């Protein structure tokens, strides 16, 4: 059906992205919102890495008989390095976010975004 996998990967990853975005906007539980952000981020990773892969190319590692680096038969290493960096950042952000949600829950007894009313004019 397709010449390469790219359209399929784009469609799947964008569908996941849409679902995650929906989760972010619709869900009221703070925990679920942060999880939805993680999912959305992963969808973007899938989109990026998937679109950079061409079937038949090898990993950019000189092993198993490959001794020469050549873009003709190796995939681009830069997206992989970028995603590696971004994954770690994603972990860092969700760890911090979840720790704040846990603390907020202990302080107020709820973790619903529509009940967060401690800030504003009255306080």
């Amino acid at each position: 059906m397709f010449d390469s996998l790219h359209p399929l990967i784009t469609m799947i990853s964008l569908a996941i992205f849409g679902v995650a975005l929906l989760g972010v906007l619709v869900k009221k539980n703070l925990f679920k919102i942060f999880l939805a952000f993680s999912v959305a981020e992963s969808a973007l990773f899938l989109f990026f890495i998937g679109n950079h892969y061409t079937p038949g190319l090898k990993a950019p590692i000189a092993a198993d008989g490959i001794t020469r680096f050549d873009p003709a038969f190796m995939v681009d290493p830069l997206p992989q390095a970028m995603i590696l960096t971004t994954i770690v950042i994603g972990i860092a952000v969700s760890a911090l976010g979840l720790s704040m949600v846990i603390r907020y829950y202990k302080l107020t007894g709820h973790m619903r975004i529509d009940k967060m009313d401690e800030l504003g004019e009255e306080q």
Partner: protein
Amino acid sequence: MSLLLFILLPLLAIFLMPFYRAYLHYVSTVLSMALFGLALTCKAALPLVERVAVDLPLAITFELSSVSWLLVTLFTLSMSLFSLYHLRFSSNKALFVGTNMLLVGVIGLVLSRDIFNIYIFFEISSISAYLLTSLNQDAKAYGGAIRYMIIGAFASLFFLLSIMLIYLTIGVLDLQMIAQRFNLIDEQVQYLILLSLFIALGIKTELFGLNFWVPDVYQASRSAVSGLFSAMLSKSYLFLLFHLAYLLHVSTSQMAFLTLVAALTFAVAEFSALKSRETKRIFAFSTLGQIGLIALALSYGDTALTEAALFLIIVHALAKLMLFLALDLLERRLGSTKSEIFARFESLFLMAVFTVGALSLLGIPPFAGFAAKLSLLKGLAGLEAYGAMALILTVSLIEAAYLFRLLSGFRQGEQKMVVTLSPLERLIFGVMMFALLLLGLMPQPLLALCQEAAQAMLGGYHAAL
């Protein structure tokens, strides 16, 4: 001498924290003043370009042009004043890590010329801002910080999307090279990249429609930290937004859209301030208003207006930092930031500080805000943008209404608490007031610097007006 010292020295100080846990406030002060000195010594050698590790096209480029020099100097100066103010308090690990990381983040944002590297600094500055917002560790602080994180995660998602699209379609990460090849890609994709960049940076720049979270975050943070956000964080993103806009040569209609958004930011924020009775929120709305004003000036892509905008950035950062630090002092003594606290203290010096700050924000001579607004109006008159001039003058009246209402609190109230300031605090506030007065009386030297910076910032961009 390397530009990366601005990044590496604070990071080194943060990592080595366990060795001087009890002296963090001193370390922070010495460090920020050293960086300020370093920035001043760079002036002679502008523009400085440095590549990390390897050559183009692979290298990450750092560039200290006259405009980023101006901003780096401003940031290190603000940070120095902030740490001097905190010298009186005990060593605080969280404050040390948060503020110095924020400094790293904002300096990186204005120096880096590599889109993915900018994303890293984007995240560093956001995460340190989340940390600083939650510093008080009560329900209010966490409420603000969680909101901030949710909106910030949105921003970074869209920034990431734009980086990915740029790399997929252009195949480079260096801003200069992206700018060269940006016109060659599909028009739809161009729009998509610009739109996601606008969403990401618009959230961070606190532009209209994307800034509903700002008052909450400022209210949740400590006042001094809000001052830092106002002086450093929003300014660095403002620079980044318009730097990218000029570099990518956005069309006239897209710039007009930015003008509209900026005007709305300005007007709506100042109107919202009118309703508020909580000083931190009032100052937050006023920051939003000033950001709208600066963005309005920058969106014309005109040298004279950009010069005025840069001058306004500096003046506003100084005035707002001073107001927020003074408010922090009051908050610590009186335990509240409602506007009624202005009737509850007795200190001629602090009253002078608030008055000077407010008058400078309003743009009343002889303070620096006047020079800024004057050059802004002159620039607008030069472009015959009379609608924008009328808007600025009208909205300034509203600004005057709420600021004078705030100041009139001084004359009310019976039971006043006497607030005394330490010599160091008097020195800090004295220097800032003096600077605002001096810049108002003699704006020429700084305006000349701003003009040079404006030319560097606009680069080859000429709006076809």
